[in-house]
């Protein structure tokens, strides 16, 4: 019987068993949607909060507006001044409003007397969502304070610039688009996770699992080239890994459709990009399957294999995410690091940056070379009969 036929027979059985394994199916069919779902939720939050701040302006509830008509008039130029709730602190605590400005009755008198006139700004610093409104209110109050101070100085014949030795000009270049783009950096991370989690149950089941159920011994007693056995098990894991990858990528491609059209930025996730991302990920699928089968075959038992592979998954995923968040261009040598190179190239694609064929080619070649190395190791492990007995 030919090598290829041996491979095919074992491969077909791995697929059949995988399809009948609920754990493998959940890993391959449901988990992959987690990443896209998370991204969709985060993006819609970003777009909501930025739309509110950028377009609708900030609501500013003011209590005691009759105490400072001038101040309120000034505030109205930067925010929508509305009536404050009866108990400002309780309302803020409950999150009914983001911020309340309380102007006490003595405000006008203190102002006229030239004493610091107290106002109270009620906020909840622990609420992330409330921060833009609170910051806007503080900003307006500071501006009015400066303006009033300047007027007083002018009246006394002093140029206002004298008390402003420093002129800090803050320029916030972040836009909804760039804030959302930093979220896109999580996409390569989720793709790597999908590659590993999709194939993991099958890789473990086909090696450590078979040993635990003692079904490897009859398999090793059958006239099969051990290399066919090892590679068929890798191929089986690859199929489920690819399935998870395909779903994750499809999920990400659907994210823009699931969100309101006015996202404020464009996501570069059309069909062409998704296809290129999938092609880029194929070497990762091969390498992850080879790694998982090799390590699981050498693991002491089923549980040890699970622990090892769960840790293995984080090793390539985390540095990729860190580098994806960096804005500087990474050094070329990083593209030759398996898993990292792919994540860098994918990040470039998502940011609509130029990716040279050299970078993509380098990362694919490096990953495939690593795959060959690991597969050779797996074949050696199988030829020694190591998966059969305790390592």
């Amino acid at each position: 019987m030919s090598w290829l036929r041996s491979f095919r027979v074992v491969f077909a059985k791995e697929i059949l068993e995988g399809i009948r394994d609920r754990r493998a199916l959940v890993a391959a069919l449901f988990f992959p949607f987690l990443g896209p779902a998370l991204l969709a939720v985060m993006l819609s939050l970003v777009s909501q909060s930025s739309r509110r701040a950028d377009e609708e302006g900030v609501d500013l509830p003011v209590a005691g507006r009759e105490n400072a008509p001038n101040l309120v008039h000034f505030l109205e130029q930067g925010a929508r001044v509305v009536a404050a709730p009866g108990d400002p602190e309780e309302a803020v605590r409950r999150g009914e409003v983001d911020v309340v400005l309380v102007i006490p009755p003595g405000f006008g008198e203190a102002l006229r007397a030239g004493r610091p006139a107290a106002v109270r700004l009620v906020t909840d610093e622990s609420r992330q969502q409330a921060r833009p409104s609170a910051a806007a209110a503080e900003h307006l109050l500071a501006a009015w304070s400066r303006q009033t101070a300047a007027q007083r100085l002018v009246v006394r014949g002093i140029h206002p610039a004298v008390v402003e030795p420093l002129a800090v000009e803050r320029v916030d270049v972040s836009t909804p688009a760039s804030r959302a783009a930093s979220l896109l950096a999580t996409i390569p991370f989720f793709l790597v996770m999908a590659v590993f989690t999709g194939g993991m149950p099958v890789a473990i089941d086909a090696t450590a699992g078979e040993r635990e159920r003692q079904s490897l011994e009859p398999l090793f007693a059958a006239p099969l080239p051990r290399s066919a056995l090892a590679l068929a098990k890798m191929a089986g894991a690859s199929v489920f890994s690819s399935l998870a990858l395909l779903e994750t990528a499809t999920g990400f491609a659907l994210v823009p459709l699931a969100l309101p059209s006015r996202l404020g930025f464009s996501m570069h996730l059309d069909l062409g990009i998704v296809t290129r991302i999938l092609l880029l990920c194929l070497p990762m699928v091969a390498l992850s399957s080879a790694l998982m089968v090799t390590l699981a075959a050498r693991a002491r038992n089923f549980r040890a294999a699970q622990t090892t592979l769960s840790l293995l998954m984080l090793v390539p995923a985390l540095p990729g995410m860190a580098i994806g968040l960096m804005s500087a261009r990474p050094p070329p040598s990083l593209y030759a690091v398996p898993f990292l190179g792919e994540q860098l190239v994918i990040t470039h694609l998502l940011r609509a940056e130029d990716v040279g064929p050299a970078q993509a080619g380098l990362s694919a070649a490096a990953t495939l070379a690593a795959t060959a190395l690991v597969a050779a190791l797996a074949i050696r492990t199988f030829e020694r009969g190591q998966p059969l007995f305790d390592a």
Partner: protein
Amino acid sequence: MIELEGVAKAFGAIEALRGVTFTVPDGQITGLLGPNGAGKTTALRIVYGVLRPDRGRALVNGVDLAGDRLAAQRRLGVLPHAQGLYTRLTAREHVLYFGEMHGLSGAALARRADGLVRLLGMEDFADRRTEGFSQGQKVKVALARALVHDPENVVLDEPTNGLDVAATRQVRALLRQLREEGRCVLFSSHVMQEVSALCDRVVVIARGQVVAEGTPDDLRRETGRESLEDAFVAAIGSEEGLG
């Protein structure tokens, strides 16, 4: 025919086999008898090619396992110590899977599987997944799987272990049938009654060495004991590990 020539195997500091030589002829049932830990399973594993000997060699129909493992394994039907079934495959799927590994396919393989299901009386559970099978059902599946390619040599590691009386009798009948068909049958056991009921030849193994070999009558004569059990104890020199 199965031959072991000076086979030695150590696991770390433990010498499981220390130069084992014996021959298993065709058309006979040969029993590999020995106390627990004597090296029976190690010897069988070397015969069916999942372990490599440190020294010596094992041959199946004259083919050296170290030279052409696949050719030797094609002529072997193997029932390992543990049945090792796939819980998500049906009994019949096990038979088909191993049939395909041995190069069978299509209608011929389906007919062969049907024949084995009938031969082993597996009609009731042939198309059920093996999860929750009784020990007897598991052994039957493993036997069908071992015989799917009509092997000239059959190696069984304690085939009746854990079986009830009816199932044990069925397995014994099957082994006799395999002998009538002219096959070479090698099985291991530590149960005396089984060996005396079935075997044409006995190889007694203890502490990794062959301590006696021959027909049950030879054994009794050589040791000067009436029962095979006494002969066995005399041969291995102790009662330790006997079942």
